[in-house]
Every structure is written in C-alpha cells, then in structure tokens.
C-alpha cells in the first residue's frame, strides 16, 4: 500500500462528500415538484409527455397502484428491448448496424432484456459481436435510464411513506419516473458524456476499424481435431460505436453493462485516470445524494447524514480490506521477482502487489477502489477482473453484494434496501429505550417487521439456495474454472451478483449454460421485483400512520450511536447469514494459499 494509493481513495471520498449535498437537495426539489432552474427547458417537455401519454400528474397512487404501474412499465420495456434485439438485423438503416450483426438468439435476448430491466446488466454475451448500435442505443442505453429512474422513483416512494402523515398514497409513479429521468439523469449524463469524450471516449456510428499489429502475435489454440493449432495474428479489429453516451448512464445509473466486453478496463470506455475517477464518483453520486434527499424529505437532515455515514463506514472497511489484500504479493509467487530491474535489496519482489487481472494504467489502489465501489453500489462495471483478485481481495466485492447492495447501493434500490435495514435496526434496538420502536415518529409494528424480514429473507434464500444446488449437480459444477474453495466462490459470486442486481462476475465461471442462464435469470428477477413488493407494502403501511412528535424519549436516528448501530446490524445480519459459506470459499482459499496449497 502506498500513500499515493490512500491519497487517491481520500480524494475520491472528499469529492463525493462535496457533491452529495447539492445533488441531494436538488433531487428533493425535483421529486417534491418544487421550482428548479431547469424548469424553463424541461417543464414544457414534461407537460408534453403527460399530454401525449394521458398521464394525470396530480393523481396520487396507493402502494399497490404504484407497484403495479412500476411492474407494467418494467414489463413493457423488457418486451421492447427483447423485440429490438430480435429485430436488430432487419432495421434498414445501415449506420445502425454497420457490422451486419444478426438477430440475437432468443434465449440470450430474453436474458439480456431481463438483465437490463432489473438494473443488473449481467452480460452473457460479447457486446462487440452481438449487439448492433441500434440495440445498444435504443435497447440497452435507454433501459439504463429507465431502470435507474425506476429505482429512484421507488426510493422516493419509500421516503414519502416515512414522511407522509396518515396518507393512503405514495405519489405518482409516472411523474416520479419522468422527473427523475428529465431533471436528474439526462442533464448529468449530457455533461458527463461530453467530459468522457474530451478524455478520449468514442462516440460514433462508424464500422469497426482494422489495424495492422506492430508486433504480430502467435496464438496456440485447440483445433477442430483437438490438437493444438498455432496461428499468427497480424491484424486487430478495433470496435467502434456510440459509446460515451451509454458509458455515462452505465455508471450514473449503477447499471454497469459495458459497451464492450472489457467494460471499464477498455481504453475507449475508461481512457484516463481522470475518467476512472469520474466513473467511480458517478457510481456513488446519486445513491449518496439520495441520503441527503432522505434527510430533507423526512425533515431530519441529521438522519440523512447518519445513513450516509453508515454507508461510508462500510465502504471504507471494504476498500481498506481490498486494497490491503491486493497490495500483497501472491504468496505462491514468493521468490519470483516480478520487477527484476528495480527491486533493490530489502524491497518486495512484487512491489505492485497482485497485478493479475488489473489494468496497469490504474494499478492496485484504483482497482481495489473501483471493485469496492462497483459492488457496494449495484453497478457491476469493472476496471479489473475480480476473479483474479487475491482470495480476501475478491471476498470484498462478494461480501459487499451480500450485505444487500445497500452500501450506497443501486440508484434508489440502495436507499430503499438500506431503509429496510434501518427499520430492522430501529426495531431491534428501539425496544431498548422502553418504547414501541418508532422510526421518525412512525411506529414499527408487526406488519412492518414481517414484510421487512421477508425482504431480508428473500435475498439469502435465492443466493444460498441456488448455490447449494449448483455445488451438488454436474450442471453446476462443470462451469467452474477452478476447483476447491475458489470454485465455490465463483458460484456464490454469480448468484450473489444476480440477486443483488450487480452484474459483475467472477468471470472464470462459464455462466453461458442452460443451468446458469435460467437460474441466474430467475435470481435477477426475484432479486429485483419480488423484493420490491414487500418494500412498497412497508412504505404503504408507514404512510398511513400518524407521526408521533419527537421528544427526549424518541429513539434517536440522527446520532453517531445510530450509525454504529445500523452498521452493526448490517454486518451481523449479513455476516451471520453468509459467514459459513464464505468460510469455505474465500476465507479457506486464503488460508490454504498461505500454506502453499492451490487448486487447478
């Protein structure tokens, strides 16, 4: 670990801290339909959209109606994306498919549509050779906006459930969706995409380039008869496309689906250290801002900051562990000098730490930070390969997702997921002050506890359930690339990533099989929509309650003590659930590696 590395991590957090408040307050204004400086431009657009769609922006929805509208919208956009993928070859505009890519396979098209609808962006395909520009733009990039705006709308609905007094309704889904897209996502993405372009990200509709390699490469691969065949490669295809526009929302909307297969490790997606910083920041930007929005809308700014602090503590614990683990040399490579020319006496023989799977442009610190941020939030974009991390370094992304994607979390989903944990925390600890637990004046009673526990329960159920089956059946075991504890980690990671709607992977696992495609697909849908239902029910129930005015007897939710408590509950619930599985995965792998044992 270097002071430079720590400094970069510190700079990242300082910038986040600076950006959170103004954005959070702005978002509160947007969702409360107050005046903003963008109204002169966006107001007419908004009104036009309502007129065209017949939406009455004044109509309030109950939680059931809100949920139904959200499901209808998600289902419709899922089908639209599916249709675009299936029909991409038939669109008679050459510039939208210069590579003449064929229709996407039905199953893959379905998987991808579901993956982008759930904000997971798990990619079972190589984008460069599968998706036309039309699909990338109209199918995937737009979905990045929609699923993000949906998540934000749901979070706002939940916050209204807390702040409203004896109300049956939670707002209007269509209005929240529209305003979130127009006022928050679009303006930021517009500026952000231009900034990316300024750094070298591409934005075009050109056919792919072919360049001659300066240094021809010899590649050995098994031929048709199974014998190794050696070929010499002299040219390389450089993929092109409307990248910057998609890259912006991919990060800002915590979607994470790469325009290219290499995702943010690709120089076009993430050209410079500056874009790397911007991309990490943009992952946390909205989730961090929503903490402040929460504080503003419920009338307790301190509570917003307390939640922000809890998220920050968990984030820091993750990044510190990951950075520490990755800065160590692999013990199996001990004695192998990885930097012959510069290692002086007394210096580590691999001073860069574990560089396998990392972009040399970003190094260990920025890779560890990126991996932590992208898995804290349910983004899933990567600038390094998590599968190649050291066992404990790789455990951090895994454990981050296992906490429930609430460490800042997905846009919106992180906030409502965290608020469910807040309710559980308030309930467990709230009794200790000698009152029926109250959350910001709302009594937490059997109904809320029941649904919150259901929410908490669904998550490990799908992860551990499918993973347990996968380690027992050949269809599950045949996909892992390493045996021993790392294989278990790969399987756990796949289900955890899908359930948490993250989308990153331990890429060693070949997930493009019938078993994994189908079960991971189910996991993604359950992890998004089945968890939303109890969450909205809790919000609906909270909204109907009276607000007990705060007094000295009220359980404090804006104190450091509360932050400590919230962090403890998240860690204990998460750890107690997943510790047995982790102990046989990354922890065991780490201990075995230290004693020199590895698996192939």
């Amino acid at each position, binding site marked *: 670990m270097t002071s430079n590395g720590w400094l970069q991590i510190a700079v990242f957090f300082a910038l986040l801290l600076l950006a959170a408040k103004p954005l959070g307050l702005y978002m509160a204004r947007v969702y409360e339909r107050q005046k903003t400086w963008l109204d002169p431009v966006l107001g007419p657009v908004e009104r036009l959209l309502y007129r065209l769609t017949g939406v009455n922006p004044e109509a309030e929805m109950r939680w059931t109606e809100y949920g139904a509208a959200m499901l209808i919208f998600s289902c419709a956009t899922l089908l639209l994306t599916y249709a675009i993928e299936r029909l991409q070859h038939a669109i008679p505009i050459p510039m939208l498919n210069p590579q003449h890519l064929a229709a996407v396979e039905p199953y893959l098209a379905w998987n991808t549509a579901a993956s982008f609808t759930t904000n997971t962006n798990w990619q079972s395909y190589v984008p460069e050779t599968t998706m036309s520009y039309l699909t990338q733009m109209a199918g995937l990039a737009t979905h990045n906006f929609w699923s993000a705006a949906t998540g934000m709308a749901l979070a706002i609905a939940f916050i209204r459930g807390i702040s409203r007094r004896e109300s049956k309704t939670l707002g209007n889904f269509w209005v929240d969706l529209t305003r979130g897209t127009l006022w928050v996502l679009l303006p930021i993405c517009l500026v952000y995409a231009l900034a990316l372009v300024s750094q070298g990200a591409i934005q075009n509709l050109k056919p792919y380039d072919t360049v001659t390699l300066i240094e021809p490469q010899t590649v050995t691969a098994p031929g048709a008869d199974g014998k190794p065949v050696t070929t010499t490669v002299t040219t390389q295809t450089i993929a092109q496309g409307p990248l910057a526009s998609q890259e912006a929302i991919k990060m800002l909307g915590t979607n994470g689906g790469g325009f290219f297969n290499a995702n943010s490790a690709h120089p076009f997606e993430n050209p410079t250290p500056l874009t790397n910083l911007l991309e990490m920041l943009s992952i946390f930007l909205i989730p961090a801002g929503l903490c402040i929005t929460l504080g503003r809308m419920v009338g307790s700014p301190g509570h917003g900051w307390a939640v922000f602090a809890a998220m920050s503590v968990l984030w820091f614990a993750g990044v510190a562990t990951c950075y520490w683990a990755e800065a160590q040399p692999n013990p199996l490579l001990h004695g192998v000098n990885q930097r012959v020319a510069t290692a002086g006496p007394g210096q580590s023989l691999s001073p860069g730490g574990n560089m396998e799977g990392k972009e040399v442009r970003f190094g260990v610190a920025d890779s560890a930070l990126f991996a932590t941020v992208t898995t804290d939030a349910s983004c899933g974009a990567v600038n390094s390969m998590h599968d190649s991390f050291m066992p404990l370094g790789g455990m951090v992304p895994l454990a981050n997702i296992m906490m429930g994607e609430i460490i800042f979390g997905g846009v919106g989903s992180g906030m409502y997921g965290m608020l469910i944990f807040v309710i559980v925390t308030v*309930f*467990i*600890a*709230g*009794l*200790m*002050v*000698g*009152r*029926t637990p109250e959350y910001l*004046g709302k009594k937490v*009673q059997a109904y*809320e*506890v*029941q649904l919150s*526990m*259901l929410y*908490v*329960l669904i998550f*490990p*159920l799908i992860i*551990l*359930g499918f*993973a*347990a*089956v996968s*380690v*027992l059946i050949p269809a599950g075991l045949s996909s892992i690339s390493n045996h021993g504890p790392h*294989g*278990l980690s790969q399987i756990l990671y796949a289900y955890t990533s899908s359930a948490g709607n993250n989308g990153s992977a331990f890429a060693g696992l070949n997930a493009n099989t019938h078993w994994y495609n189908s079960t991971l697909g189910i996991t993604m849908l359950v992890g998004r929509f089945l968890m939303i239902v109890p969450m909205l029910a809790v919000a609906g129930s909270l909204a109907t*309650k*009276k*607000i*007990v*005015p705060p*007094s*000295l*007897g*009220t359980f*404090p939710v804006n*104190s450091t*003590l509360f932050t400590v*408590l919230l962090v*403890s509950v998240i860690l*204990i*619930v998460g*750890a*107690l*659930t997943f*510790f*047995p*599985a982790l*102990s*046989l*995965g990354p*922890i*065991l792998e780490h*201990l*075995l590696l*230290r004693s020199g044992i590895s698996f192939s």
Partner: protein
Amino acid sequence: MSATHTGTSKKRAMFESSIVRRAAVDSLKKLNPRLQAKNPVMFVVEVGSVVTTLLLILPHGSTHFAFNLQITLWLWFTVLFANFAEAMAEGRGKAQADALRKAKSETTAYMLRADGNVEEVPSSHLRVNDKVRVVAGQMIPGDGEVIEGVASVDESAITGESAPVIREAGGDRSAVTGGTRVLSDVIVVRITSNPGETFLDRMIALVEGAQRQKTPNEIALNILLAGLTIIFLLAVVTLEPFAVYSSAPQTVFVLISLLVCLIPTTIGGLLSAIGIAGMDRLVQHNVLAVSGRAVEAAGDVNTLLLDKTGTITLGNRQASEFLTAAGVTAEELADAAQLSSLPDETPEGRSIVVLAKELYGLRGRELANLNVEYIPFSALTRMSGIDMEGRSIRKGAADAIANYLKENGSILPDEVRATVDKVARQGGTPLVVAENGRALGVIHLKDIVKGGMRERFEQLRAMGIKTIMITGDNPLTAAAIAREAGVDDFLAEAKPKDKMDLIKREQAQGKLVAMTGDGTNDAPALAQADVGVAMNSGTQAAKEAGNMVDLDSNPTKLIEIVGIGKQLLMTRGALTTFSIANDVAKYFAIIPAMFMVVFPQLAIINVMHLSSPESAILSAVIFNALIIVALIPLALRGVKYRPMSAAALLQRNLWVYGLGGIIAPFIGIKLIDMIIASIHLV
C-alpha cells in the same frame, strides 16, 4: 399513601422453592408440541432434539456416541430451560392467584326481596341487580355498588393494605368488591356482576396468565425472531452442500448444534417469561391491567394527565397566612377567622383554627358554652360563619362576601380586592373574612404540592413525557401551582368534556395519553385515553372504562406504571440484542471446529483456542443452554431502569447488552471448554 409506595408487602423471593418445584414439573408438560409450537424458536430446538434423539437410538455406525449423546441431552436441556423460565414466571402469578382464591370462598348473602323481606342465599346465586344487605363483620358477597348507607371496609384481601376504607352510597366511593369485609355499620349493595365475572375472578385469571394473549410488540418481536430463525435455518441447510463440495461433510448432530446455537434461543426462550413477569410487576405494585397491551402502551405514553387535587397537591388546602385590611390588626382577623371556623369540620376550616393558634396563640373556644348559631356553607350563599352575641362573622369567596357586604350597605374595599387578586396569582385560594358588615381581611388558603413531585416531573421530562395538570381552578391559580409543581402544562377550569377534548387533541398528534380517574364523569375520558387507570375506590363505571385499576387508589402511581411499561419493553430489547450479539462468538467456536479436521489451516479462526472440535461444539451448545437459565432472574426482574433520555438509555443498554453480548460468550464458551477438557467429557 406515599407517592413511592412499592407494594413491598407483596414481593416474594425470586426463587421460592414451592414455585421452583411447580415450574420444574410444568416445564416438562410444556414439551407438548402443540404448546411448544406457539414459540417458533424453541419449537425448532425441540424438533432438533427429537431428530438427534431418534438418530441416537436408531442403529447406525456412528463412532461418536458419547459426543452425540451429550449434544442431544443439552438440546433437550435448552428446551426445558426455556420452558422453565416461562413456568417460573407463571408460577409467581399462580401463587398470587391461590392467595386470591382463598378470598373467594362461598359466603351467605342476605338478599333483599322486592317485598322488603330478607332471604338467605349462597353468594354464588346472586345475579346482577340483586340487592343485598351487609352488616359489620360480614363478607361482601359480590361486586357491587353501595346504594344505601356508609361503612368502613377491610379490602386487604385484594389490596394487601390493612387500613380500612370508607365506602358510601352516591358519589365516587360507592364501589365494593366481593370478598372484602365490612368492619362497621350496615350497607345495602346492588350487585353489578354475575358469578364468574367478578373482579376477583378477573383478577385471578389475570395474575394466573390464563387468558394471556401476546401483546403487539411481542407479536412483532416473535416475527423478527421467526425470520432470523428461517435465515439461520437456510444458512445451516445450505452449508451441508458446500461442506460436501469441500469434501468435509458434517453429521446431523453438528449441523443441528450449529443451528440451535445460531437461532435466537436466548430471547426466544425468555420472551414469554418477560411478558408475564411484566404483568406480575404491575400486580406487585397493586395495579391490575386488563391486558398486556395496556402495559406496553404505558411504556409508550407521551402525555400524562394528572389531576391536581390528590395527585400533585395534597387533597386539602391549608391556611398559610392572614392578610389584614387597612385598620385591622392581625389578631383581630385571626380571632374572627378562628371563631367562624370552629364549627367547620372541613380540613380547610381546621387549618384556619390551627394557624391562628400557631401564629397568635389563640386557643379554640368551647362554642357550646357560648350562644352561637352556626351558618353552614351553602351553594346559594357560598359563605359560612357564625352569629353570636352581637358578632356576625362570615367567610367566603371574594364575590360572595362582596354581595353580602352590599346587602348590608357596605362594600368590599379595593385594597382587599387587591389582596385577593395577589393571593390568587400566587396559586392560593383567598377567603375573605367579614365581621358585622366590615371586611377584616383575607385568609390565604394554599394548595400544598406533595413533596418530591417536582423531581418526578423532571424525570418524566427527561424521558420525553409531558405532564399536564388538570384542575377546576381558575387559570391564574392553576398557572401558579403548575409553576410550583413543575408540570409542563395545565388545563384550568376543566370540565369533563375539556379533558376529553384534550385527550383527543393529543392523540390526533400521534401521542399516547395516560390518565387516572375515579368518578363516573371520568369514565369517557378513561376509555378514550390509551392508558386509563381507575382508582379502586372509584365508581364501577370508572373501573369498567379504564384498562387498569389501581388497588391502592393512588393517582401518583401512574408514574410507576409508565416505568414498568418501559422496563418491560427494554428487557425485551436488551435480551434480543444480547441474543443476536452472542452469535458472533458461536461462529468462532463452531465453524473452525466443523472444518478443522479436513482443513487444519482453519485453526487460525479458532480464536478461543478451544481444546478439540467436539469440545468446541459441545461448549457452544452448553453455553447456549445455560445462558437461558442464567438470564431467568433478569427476565423476571426486568433490566434496570432509570429515567433518562432515550439516547442515554440506548447508549447504556448497548454497552451492557450489545457489547456484553458479544464478549460474554467468548468467555463463557472458553470456560466451559476448559472444564470439558479437564474432565475429559469428549
């Protein structure tokens, strides 16, 4: 009755041997799966125990018989200990119920028939609206209302208080309870409840916990615990496939041990005991709650409505000074005041006599020797006084005396009026004294705030509870007393409807309101309040309307009731936190033990350096069982509660039960392991 009455007379030792014996038997009876299933956490443990028992007796090739046997036994102990905790809590109530049943013996009732004759019937034959006559020395045969006469009644069978109380027809002291004894005089009682529905019957049922229903918070907590149990069940069930994948399969004994250690058995086992003990604590304070729900609500109370008279101030006003009119000496005024008060038997009147004696050495005179006519207080004149030997003395409220003077062609001087206003502003009641058409001055009658009330209101404020004083006084007087007593707010010139409106107004803001009351006109407000404590001395209507009855009829006890409610909730929260925090250590004991045989590298997680895998697992299971027993006293007594702000309480309890819950099992498991290793149990 002092404000700090704690009902010590009824306190029992925590582990009375008769209760322990009965509880031990009951804990076996509670193994019945149908009873056990009411507690999902302990039901899972029982199922686990049955499974391990079956595996133990079925023929199989296992080699670890001694280990498996001990695990199985300790699993059963875990269930039994939890049952024992509940049985202990119930046992204390049952002992109380037995004592009450003794008061319920069959007696002969003297029923008054419509024709005026008296008929002897067994008390169990009495029905609502029957009228019975009870004379001194007889037991009152059933709950009822005195409709004729006045008597002193020994209610010690119910209240434990030996001093007799007065019960009389009409007014707010008319209710009598079956099983109490008339000590003097004769009363006629109209029976108000049928056999089996009497107060005593309800009381027995309540303390026995026969109709115990889970309270709202208990239900919610049960759901949380059930949810955690399912999560841990999932974690353990899926662990076996992962273990098989890792070539380190586990036995069912080990897996069930892990499961039982992880699920919240500590709180699961003690939860109902905590609830029963909370009700029991209330009974020990001589308060009966119709449901546990009311006790919980007491903990949630935001606003306390307290009647001024009898709660905040001593029941009676006392004369505190004589304020003379111009040209009148203090002795003159005191003499007239004392003379006019001599025949006045009210406490106020007596206090005037006493004050005159104390200040000016004026002795009470024997009026019978003088030719005196006493003019008693009447609602019409609102004055009292005497006429004697050319002296005509009157005392009364300022406007009444002003009228009296006007009729006699005189007026009330402005300076006396000013004195009257001054006294009123200070919270006192001014009584003007006039003799032969001349105002002599003012007697300052003062409300005496009970000792220690200010401190108690400060404690309540620290807990975030607002106190509102209810009084019939005018706003000026009320404000002064409110200031002196330190209440947050007051409702002056309160009529029953104002009280009701105030409760509704507070409730509309989401607040929970508690109040006491005894009169029939309090009944609607008692019913509306979230916690309505009726005085046992009050009317039947008041007792029916409230959700608690204070047998001591001490309105100040509302403050203790709030404390008991909070203590009940806190005990649940503290033990839940403790229970969950315990799991951390158990993981560190069991997980390495499970896999160390195959992967010796995992020994590094064995932070407690437990002697062997078997011993580690057994130690965790034993700790898990013993901690339930160890916490029974805490569950029954409740966690320590001192009035302080929620933030301070939370911090304190988190240190004790959160951090303590993490550390305690590390020490406990290590100790048990050392014992196991030293005597070679496994």
